């Protein structure tokens, strides 16, 4: 086997979105105060460039309690109410207590928060929140958050800085000290493919933070970017860590038909209303009333009801023939004409542009056609509030993690703040782990400059790492590289079929027949994937191969989502079973684990179980 390039870091962060950047910045700040010669190094690995990450698409805002008419207790209570019994209250409290602090930290880093006239940070209403506590930057909150974090991180990413960026490096898998499931197994690093040089490398580290985002892109109609493919979630599962509550997928009620492009809930927070084919505010007829005056939104009623309820109301209105038929299925109208052009331009400029560009509608003059679209993965890699998984050295933060904050249904604007709070906590926890575990028996590699994507200079030879580890990493890399130029099943067909299957049978409402059909279909697609065709044999920027590797991850996570949905014979939050409309008295989490054979197992555990207990004990 050809020797593998080996580089070192104290902490590896996989993913350059808000959670990953927050984790990396936490390590970088610790480095600033570390004793001379002991400053930690964090490898920030992104398959794109960090400022391209999907955080960029978050629109509405981030929740944090400020002001004397709100309280931390109320934010906890709202979150727990939205979560329908599946929140881990400790995690909710952890995030809520730190929420405003992290938003202030962003403020001090230069985040362009929208302001009230007196110059204080403005807050807006959001669905499921009983008080206005959502901080925002017009309707591009995620975009500004990501760019503020990324630009701040550049300060630490100079030649001798603590952040070493590996841009356009595709992480293939974790490397462990022993087989997954072995009680002694610990994280030892990641196997990465450098897309520019066209070669694999091992980044050895005793702590890894996964911050790879969700998996909602698996659905055919989705708000999610092309890169949101569940890579980290699948890696954790292959390493023996459980995926928790995978069946809870949030459908955003207002996406553009066809493209699935998100129109933020802030449209409704600002006073936009939803109308059926006859121009009636249909939500009142589906349990979200009483009707509130147009332009005067009331928390948790009508258009500001929880997202799951709004998406369910659409489904019922569609069934009742109250939607407007189009080639993309039924649609309803999102009407914000009464806001006026000026307010739309000030508060909702992105939405106005998206509606014009992608739907050909000027929202100041016409209502915008919308329908629900797959949006957010509530479940994820099972972690505690600080992002620690059951596997020593492995952490997860952001949408890929299940800390228990969101339970069965996320409230809008809780997830952006989670990326900051848990991202930071996971970075700090990972650094503590790295210091405790020691530098894997090696000296500090890389006195020279790193210089970003080229990855030069940080490496020492393979000899300084346990040879077994390098062999194992080389074997993993070799397995993935061998996919090139082989196979017969076109990946695009598998991907499209997966989207159709999930849209049809794992959508807003589910039942046993549909889920059984979806399960068989996904299993079939996984079998076909075993013979997937990678036509491109190139080494550099082989996106045919990279997206096919991603598809493998997506299939595993989608399989778990469908199997867990079939196994949950109740309706709760975002998981609604037509054949099991009731809610069980005692809420339980689902756990999906992957055997070394690749087979999937679903078990359940009570809410409030110890967070570091071993799975499969």
């Amino acid at each position, binding site marked *: 086997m050809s020797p593998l390039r080996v580089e070192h870091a104290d902490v590896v962060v996989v993913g350059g979105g808000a959670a990953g950047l927050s984790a990396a910045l936490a390590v970088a700040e610790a480095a600033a105060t570390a004793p001379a010669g002991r400053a930690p190094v964090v490898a920030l690995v992104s398959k794109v460039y960090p*400022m391209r990450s999907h955080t960029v*698409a978050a629109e509405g805002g981030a929740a944090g309690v400020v002001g004397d008419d709100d309280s931390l207790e109320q934010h906890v209570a709202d979150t727990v109410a939205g979560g329908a019994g599946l929140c881990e209250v400790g995690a909710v409290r952890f995030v809520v207590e*730190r929420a405003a*602090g992290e938003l*202030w*930290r962003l403020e*001090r880093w230069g985040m362009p928060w929208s302001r009230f006239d007196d110059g204080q940070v403005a807050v807006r209403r959001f669905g499921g929140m009983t008080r206005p506590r959502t901080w925002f930057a017009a309707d591009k909150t995620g975009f500004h958050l990501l760019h503020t974090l990324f630009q701040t991180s*550049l300060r630490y990413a100079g030649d001798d800085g603590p952040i070493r960026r590996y841009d356009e490096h595709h992480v293939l898998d974790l490397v462990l000290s022993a087989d997954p499931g072995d009680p002694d197994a610990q994280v030892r690093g990641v196997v990465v493919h450098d897309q520019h040089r066209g070669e694999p490398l091992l980044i050895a580290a005793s702590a890894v933070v996964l911050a790879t985002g969700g998996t909602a892109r698996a659905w055919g109609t989705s708000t999610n*970017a092309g890169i949101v493919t569940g890579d980290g979630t699948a890696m954790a599962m292959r390493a023996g860590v459980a995926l928790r509550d995978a069946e809870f997928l949030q459908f955003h009620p207002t996406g553009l038909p066809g493209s699935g492009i998100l129109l933020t809930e802030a449209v409704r927070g600002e006073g936009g209303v939803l109308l059926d084919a006859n121009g009636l505010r249909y939500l009142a007829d589906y349990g979200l009333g009483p009707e509130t005056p147009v332009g005067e939104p009331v928390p948790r009623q009508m258009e500001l009801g929880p997202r799951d309820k709004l998406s369910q109301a659409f489904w019922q209105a569609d069934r009742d023939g109250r939607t407007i038929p189009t080639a993309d299925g039924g649609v309803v109208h999102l009407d914000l004409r009464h806001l006026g052009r000026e307010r739309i331009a000030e508060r909702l400029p992105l939405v106005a542009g998206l509606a014009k560009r992608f739907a050909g509608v000027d929202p100041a003059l016409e209502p915008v056609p919308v329908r629900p679209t797959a949006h957010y993965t509530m479940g994820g890699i099972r972690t505690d509030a600080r992002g620690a998984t059951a596997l020593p050295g492995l952490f997860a933060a952001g949408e890929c993690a299940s800390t228990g904050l969101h339970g069965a249904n996320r409230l809008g604007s809780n997830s952006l703040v989670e990326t900051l709070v848990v991202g930071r906590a996971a970075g700090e926890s990972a650094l503590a782990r790295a210091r405790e575990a020691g530098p894997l028996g090696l000296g500090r590699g890389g006195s020279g400059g790193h210089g970003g994507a080229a990855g030069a200079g940080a490496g020492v030879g393979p000899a300084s790492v346990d040879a077994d580890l390098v062999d194992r990493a080389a074997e993993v890399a070799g397995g993935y590289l061998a996919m090139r130029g082989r196979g017969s099943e076109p990946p695009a067909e598998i991907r499209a079929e997966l989207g159709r299957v999930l849209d049809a049978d794992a959508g807003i409402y589910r039942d046993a027949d549909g889920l059984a059909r979806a399960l068989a279909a996904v299993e079939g697609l996984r079998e076909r994937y075993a013979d997937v065709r990678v036509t491109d044999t190139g080494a550099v920027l082989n996106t045919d191969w990279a997206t096919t590797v991603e598809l493998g991850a997506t299939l595993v996570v989608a399989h778990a989502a469908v199997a867990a949905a079939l196994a949950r014979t109740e309706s709760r939050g975002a998981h609604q079973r037509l054949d099991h409309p009731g809610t069980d008295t005692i809420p339980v989490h689902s756990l999906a684990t992957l055997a070394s054979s690749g087979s999937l197992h679903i078990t359940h555990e009570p809410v409030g179980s110890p967070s570091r207990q071993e799975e499969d004990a």
Partner: protein
Amino acid sequence: MSGQTVRLEVARQGAGTAEGGARDVFDVPYDERTSVLDALQWVKDHADPTLTFRWSCKMAVCGSCGVMVNGRPVLGCETFVRGYRTTGLVVEPLAHAAVLRDLVVDTDTFVGKLAAVKPWQLPVPTMPDGAVQLPLVSAEPAPRGGQDASHPDPAPGPGEDGLRAVGPASGSVQSPGELAAFKGFAECIDCMLCYAACPQLEVAPDFLGPAVVATARRWDEDSRDDGELDRADLLDTEFGVWPCIQVGACTQVCPKGVDPARALRDAQRVATETWESRQTRTDTPR
């Protein structure tokens, strides 16, 4: 798709080859909603999986999918094929950047230029850590009272196990006008279309370029930042702001209305106006 096709000519360049020039031609089915990016993806899915291009969000905010279409830099996701049904499309990599493969161009150089102008708050803010009091701000004035006064779920009072706010306790006051002063420049998505459009990058490839100067000005104009003189030292150099001759192509092609030409004009003025004070500065640059 309605059965109509459009002629799509795509520049091909293998990894590691210095010279481009190769072209492949495809007939791509389209309808009124098919974007250039959709057309490229159709080729990848149905005709040639080796065609290499970047994309991600498909909603014109991630900045990944910039390409030249018939000589003009655009975002592939928000440029629709229907406008080219009679002419056909020639899709090429963004100009003024090294091609890594097909439509993928070097981005490291751009990120390096961005980092060089210190696009972060100066001086670096300090943040008191540890438990702090709840920050108090005036909440949204208008909708208070009225129905909001009767809270549907009264907040439980803090008991012995009460919650405590943790982390930095406050930030700055910034008026909406102060926000507006830099917000336009903060809309830059780093898509590099303005680099492809700028004729000066042809003759001065080391020019910091429109987007980077716009981002530098985004921080300079932020009322919370005090780094204008530091950045002026970085911008007032041969390849800083001075290669700009105010053609304005950058502003014309910007998909986000950022107006980098104004940023460059402002930066040139600031460089001139602060020259003397920068020579006599007593504090050290940060």
